[in-house]
């Protein structure tokens, strides 16, 4: 059974069809690419899959469960986590705290135990801090755990955002242009990281990307969107050779 299955997912904003009939099936442990020119509706797809927008038509299933129209919190708890195109960290909090917010749902400590500092507080807090440090370690950020997150260099901010998303313990990770603003060296590093996440965390990844080198480097399958409609779908090598796709990207 595919981890993510969407059926004719569509959304209109005031008569404008932003995305129409978006259907994919993503198997477990895949790295799946979502590409297309600017304004093709890629981020809108992410917003529907995370509950920020409610689709006007169509459905989507995570691991067989229908999550269409559910709230962002519910969807997140069920196992969809994401990063954002323009990095959205908790800028005034430390690197460690950012990841701890990601672990929020896993911490079962009620407010009163926290205020009274009952044993439950110390236990849950210690467990989560260990988890957070372990996670930061994977991304090579543990040395900066106590730094304020907005002071990190750009590449590390991207990594932190991924670490925070992983902290919510997702089944499906959505990465919105993870390589945006990175130099070739950083992009190479990022590709390694993404592979590592897939293998180490047993993760399925859906990513939006403009960098075709990255897409052809790590994605197994890909969907091309153009003006909200699916232009092509399938194995990367085939899709990128598709004349329609080339036209969409490079013009006639």
């Amino acid at each position, binding site marked *: 059974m595919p981890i993510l299955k969407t059926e004719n997912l569509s959304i209109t904003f005031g008569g404008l069809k932003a995305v129409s009939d978006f259907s994919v099936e993503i198997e477990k442990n895949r790295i799946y690419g979502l590409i297309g020119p600017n304004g093709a509706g890629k981020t809108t797809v992410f917003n529907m899959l995370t509950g*920020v927008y409610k689709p006007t038509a169509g459905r989507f299933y995570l691991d067989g469960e229908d999550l269409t129209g559910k709230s962002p919190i519910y969807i997140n708890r069920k196992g969809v986590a994401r990063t954002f195109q323009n990095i959205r960290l*908790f800028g*005034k909090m430390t690197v460690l705290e950012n990841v*701890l917010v990601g672990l*929020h*749902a896993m911490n079962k*400590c009620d407010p009163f135990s*926290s*205020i009274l500092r009952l044993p439950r507080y110390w236990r849950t807090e210690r467990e989560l801090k260990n988890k957070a440090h372990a996670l930061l370690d994977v991304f090579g950020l543990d040395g900066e755990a106590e730094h304020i997150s907005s002071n990190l260099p750009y590449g590390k901010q991207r990594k932190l955002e991924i670490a925070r998303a992983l902290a919510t313990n997702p089944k499906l990770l959505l990465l919105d242009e993870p390589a945006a603003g990175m130099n070739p060296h950083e992009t190479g590093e990022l590709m390694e990281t993404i592979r590592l996440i897939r293998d180490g965390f047993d993760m399925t990844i859906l990513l939006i990307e403009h960098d075709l080198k990255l897409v052809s480097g790590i994605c197994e399958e890909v969907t091309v969107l153009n003006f909200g409609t699916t232009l092509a779908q399938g194995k990367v090598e085939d899709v990128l050779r598709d004349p329609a796709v080339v036209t969409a990207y490079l013009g006639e």
Partner: protein
Amino acid sequence: MAFISSVKRTLKKVKWKRYTSYIVVGAWFAVLLLLDLFGGLNDTGSRLMMLAAVYAVLAVSLNLVVGVLGELSLGHAGFMAAGGYIGAIVSKALAPSLPVAAYFPVSMIAGGLAAAAFGILIGVPVLRLKGDYIAIVTLAFSMIVFTVAQNLDFTGGASGLKEIPAETNYINAFVVLIIVLVVIQNFTRSKHGRAIMSIRDNEIAARACGVNITYYKLFAFTLAAFLAGVGGCLYAHTATVLRPESVDYNTSIELLVMVVLGGMGSMTGSVIAAAVLTLLPEYLRFLQDYRMIIYAVVLILIMVINNNETLRRYKDRFFAWCKRALAAAWAKCKTALKGKKKAPAPAAETRETLQAPAEFTEVDETALDERERKGEK
């Protein structure tokens, strides 16, 4: 010796930054106790200290909304009023039949709960609104509370609620302040506090992390209201007459000024700012009419200097220079102290005279650090 060094090592491991607020309040309290023991604390003085502690409670609770949740509230005095009136009425009803130790906590909790009820009530529109609109709704709320207090019989109308038992003393005021600090800091330094701060920093990302925005906004608002209600109750028992004017819009503004000057999100800063802003005007009475205008000018100057990039750079340079000078002086003292261990008296004296300004710069620096750390980039 081994024991002392092991104690030293443990002390080094403690994250002192977490306890600055308790240390500051504890030291302040200790000074008061000593003064009182040696008869240096008269009635006016102790009343002022009580007021300072009360305003510290209120400022700290407002900081939970403004600094931690990041929403602007212009109506905090409304919660203070709710707590003050309800607490005072409960006290007046229970005073004849119960000992102080029994009814005072009860009236404080009653006041807190009443304010918390208002907190939930006003939290609902707050959830639907953003930014400056929240400011105006809280302002409207406190205006409504003010008008209601002015016109109801059981609140004593415009002349105020009178003959409230004068049960606040500086001891219970400081105990309450410490408790409130513990509650707020333990709360903010848990997953709940982190969730609230994540909403402040980026609501969309917080939601994507599974943080329940509605629940936490309402929780922060209600907890802040509860603590403000406790503060209001404490205030009522300090002033013994609760007039609507003492809990009006201007009080909300003063509390906000305390929070901002103390540093957003810094509870220690709020406590210090509340104390300074309550005590200083009293000691500046000789300035007469010019007192408030000087206050206004200083307030504007502080805000402009701290928030303008160019001016702030000059300020930082100045403080860095002060720090270096002090460090040099301190090093000199140390060598002098080591050189003639048998005559430490003069050295101690120089140290004292030097430390007074050091404390001031340090206070300012923490507030500044706080602002820079959490600062707007």
